[in-house]
């Protein structure tokens, strides 16, 4: 249970008079700013790396090497722009990967149609 999960207003999309300044400031906190939040002990584990995780890291670094983005922009996109739900729901390198896909579309290096068609083509290789 994190701080931001507490003090829910009485309803979703509350009326302006139903949200306190404290709650508003809590909502404005970025999803990656987790230091000091409550949590319970967990089993510390090591994890094997998936092939796609390794390749994602390399792709993101090479995109920066070749000037498509820089590390600050990447961090903002993968730590802030994803929003709270996806930030916590998606694996660490999954956030990197979504962000890499979005940068190609947002900066008009590829169209959304090209991306979807490429994904369909890749899926067919596995059928």
């Amino acid at each position: 249970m994190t701080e931001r999960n507490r003090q829910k207003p009485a309803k979703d999309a509350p009326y302006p008079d139903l949200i306190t300044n404290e709650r508003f400031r809590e909502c404005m906190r970025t999803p990656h700013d987790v230091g000091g939040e409550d949590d319970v002990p967990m089993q510390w584990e090591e994890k094997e790396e998936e092939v796609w995780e390794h390749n994602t890291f390399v792709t993101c670094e090479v995109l920066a090497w070749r000037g498509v983005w820089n590390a600050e922009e990447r961090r903002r996109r993968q730590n802030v722009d994803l929003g709270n739900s996806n930030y916590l729901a998606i694996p660490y390198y999954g956030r990197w990967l979504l962000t890499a896909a979005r940068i190609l579309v947002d900066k008009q290096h590829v169209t959304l149609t090209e991306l979807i068609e490429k994904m369909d083509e890749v899926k067919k290789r596995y059928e």
Partner: protein
Amino acid sequence: MAEKHKPAPMVDEVSEFEVLEIAVRELAIEKGLFSAEDHRRWTEYMHTLGPLPAARLVAKAWLDPEFKKLAVKDGVKASLDVDIDWIGSMPTNFGTPSDYCNLRVMEDTPKLKHVVVCTLCSCYPRPILGQSPEWYRTPNYRRRIVRWPRQVLSEFGLQLPEDVEIRVVDSNQKSRFIVLPVRPEGTEGWTEDQLAEIVTRDCLIGVAVPKPGQTSNDPRPVHPAKNPYKH
């Protein structure tokens, strides 16, 4: 299935992550954003990384008081002595895009223990320490180590006396940290190589301390990958 003796497929179902990764990489190459050769060279660079250079830096600092002063004052300059060039490293020749050129070496004393975190993401000194462990990236570690460091360290098997102060250093995009632990007793007369062997990755993050005879991290469960990357 009709073909009873057909070997089981490698994967039951290709994951959306796997599909998207291939799509993004291939599109980036097709559009000329980077080349397949760039990707291959970066992968090869990744294979050269690991915790050994940082362990050697600690061993050198234990053996040479002048080098220890340099390491604490200027970690990037001291890294050159263990063959890590933060600024001019391959393959970019301008360092790595995600790991800026400021390494700080935090010196423990018998009454002061440092431990490293990155609460805001998972910043980690990759050029000198390799890829971060998964637990270091978890929201749980990032949430709790700054608030209950003594308890979290005890969960890693490091019980510190109450009179030892714990200082948690929080990484950010510009500054990366490694811990320079206290040289343990029982290592008198050891060579640099012998000393470096007991400075594990966990010691360099600060969740463990070096012990004569222990040359790897404490054992803990390993979550297997579905399609593991072979280093």
